[in-house]
């Protein structure tokens, strides 16, 4: 079975399989949606395309968080802010594409500005009629905010829970700011009623399928980039900063720069996720800055397995699928379920689904090796060594670390 092979694979093969699956999904799902007749058993309904497309954006956001949390120990409780900023940049482009088709039919000003009696477009809205400019801003705005925020926070050596709290404060401050009408981002209604993206109707099935494919492909790219970063010498350094920051300083590394780079890259990834999300859901409003959203991202990563590349993706998709089901079946219990899930994962699955699988696999292959050894020879110590060869490059909790295979 594919799932069996997937989980049993070593770290690098697991990445290759994940990327292949994502590329495959990017091609197959839109095909089944567009080219297969609606009454066929293989038809993928449009609502499912939109729903899973949304999950893929969340998965990219969770992956971005994992880069800083799982691999560098920075627990950001404000990653939703970078996601929302990327979303707003895309939303501004989509607003400008409405043109004179708005309620007030003003060719230049979006409806909310006409409503507020504004006469001209604010300076920061200029350029957003071009897709390339908006795409640049999708990366530049979250990246710049993360850079400036990280520059001050990491240089002042703010770490641990204090850093988590100020990231939370950052997203809350942005929430309050974007609620204000005179900020020029549509106040609490946000940006919505989009018509076109790159000249195609955002509501059309084909456009939705294309956005789905773009989300899957971007997630695949995100997995690849993260994997390359983690595998480089910088990636080793990143984990070294997580485990023994002062040691890296006394070796001459500037730990603040190491963190700043990862934080900025992560924010850019989150911004791209937000930009892909907005045209698929058709709205962006200040609610996306809600601190609770950012905390939810942490839950996804924790459930899937932080410090693994695949874990946050699995976590984001599973938890959100659970959320979709729960909010349909038992809406008032969803938040309790989410809270309970987080507590259960922290207590019983500290390394998440992927981490649990890895340690289970390690134990199983250990038992098998021991059994083989008992059959074959009377020197068990030698044969137990493979027992602790931990898949995925991380030691299993509780198991004594033993020789690792060279990568």
């Amino acid at each position, binding site marked *: 079975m594919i799932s069996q092979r997937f989980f049993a694979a070593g770290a690098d093969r697991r990445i290759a399989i994940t990327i292949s699956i994502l590329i495959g999904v990017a091609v197959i799902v839109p095909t089944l949606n567009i080219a297969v007749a609606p009454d066929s058993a293989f038809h993928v309904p449009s609502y499912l395309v939109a729903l899973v497309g949304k999950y893929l954006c969340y998965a990219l956001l969770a992956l971005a968080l994992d880069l800083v949390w799982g691999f560098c120990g920075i627990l950001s409780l404000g990653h939703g802010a970078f996601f929302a900023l990327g979303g707003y940049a895309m939303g501004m482009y989509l607003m400008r594409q409405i043109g004179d088709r708005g309620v007030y039919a003003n060719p230049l000003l979006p409806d909310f500005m006409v409503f507020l009696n504004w006469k001209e477009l604010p300076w920061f809205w200029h350029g957003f009629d071009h897709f390339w400019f908006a795409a640049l801003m999708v990366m530049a705005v979250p990246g710049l905010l993360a850079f400036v925020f990280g520059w001050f926070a990491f240089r002042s050596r703010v770490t641990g829970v204090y850093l988590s709290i100020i990231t939370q404060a950052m997203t809350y401050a942005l929430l309050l700011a974007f609620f204000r009408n005179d900020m020029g981002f549509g106040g609490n209604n946000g940006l919505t009623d989009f018509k076109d993206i790159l000249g195609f109707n955002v509501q059309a099935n084909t456009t939705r399928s294309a956005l789905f494919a773009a989300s899957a492909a971007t997630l695949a790219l995100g997995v690849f980039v993260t994997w390359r970063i983690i595998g*480089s010498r910088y990636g080793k350094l990143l984990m070294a900063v997580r485990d023994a920051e002062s040691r890296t300083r006394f070796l001459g590394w500037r730990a603040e720069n190491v963190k700043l780079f990862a934080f900025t890259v992560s924010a850019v990834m989150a911004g791209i996720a937000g930009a892909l999300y907005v045209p698929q859901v058709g709205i962006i409003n200040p609610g996306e800055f809600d601190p609770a959203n950012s905390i939810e991202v942490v839950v996804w990563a924790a459930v899937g397995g932080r410090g693994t590349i695949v874990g946050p993706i699995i976590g984001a998709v599973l938890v959100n699928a659970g959320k979709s089901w729960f909010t349909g079946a038992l809406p008032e219990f969803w938040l309790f379920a989410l809270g309970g899930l987080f507590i259960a994962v922290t207590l019983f699955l500290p390394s998440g689904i992927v981490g649990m699988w890895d340690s289970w696999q390690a134990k199983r292959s250990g038992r098998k090796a021991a059994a083989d050894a008992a059959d074959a020879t009377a020197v068990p110590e030698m044969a137990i060594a493979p027992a602790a060869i931990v898949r995925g490059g991380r030691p299993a909790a509780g198991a004594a670390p033993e020789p690792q295979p060279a990568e």
Partner: protein
Amino acid sequence: MSKANTILYLDGVSVSFDGFRAINNLSLVLDKGEMRAIIGPNGAGKTTMMDIVTGKTRPDAGEVYFDGNVDLTRHDEADIAMLGIGRKFQKPTVFENHCVEDNLLLSLKGPRSILPALFSRRSTAENKRIDDIFDIIRLGHRRGDLAASLSHGQKQWLEIGMLLAQDPKLLLVDEPVAGMTDAETEETARLLKQIAETHSVIVVEHDMHFVRELGVKVTCLHEGSVLSEGSLDFVSADERVVEVYLGR
């Protein structure tokens, strides 16, 4: 006192934490190529002195010079490490989730900025250097193992190896034999003596047998300043040292 030909020069250094004077008008000079052992009771300021030299703590008063003319009070930890001062912590501090070899790889002298680290590949010169260090610290057989799996003594050696990889001019070694067996202690003394042939070294240690084995000049600190200085025999015969530290 002349700073020329000194690797480390501390003069009149004081630092206090919340009114407690951890270092009190401390003066200490280490010549180039010298190995020095520092002893003293708990709270004498040994670790604080190392914090000052490595830039972790800034002194309230006094001069701290490295290599004759570099004012260390103007630099931070990373700068000072790059100037050529390596430090081993009291509690062995290695990167436990990395294999032994990667611990050395991250310590190797070289550029310390992000982009080279992101794109660099291991050169043959680096491999050679890592092999050399494994010869010195004798951990070659464990190079692929996680650092977390090393014994306490082996972690101490790995950390010393990481210092060597930095290729520093001066090594500050805080309690290298704490928690070691006698055989390991002997091995460590051999290792440090070998290192001292080509580096300046300061060793802080409580183990008097070990200090005797090193056979170097000894400084005894007490209440943040130098109590006595000289050969081990001279220092251990000093009445005041016996009084506060060695016991009668």
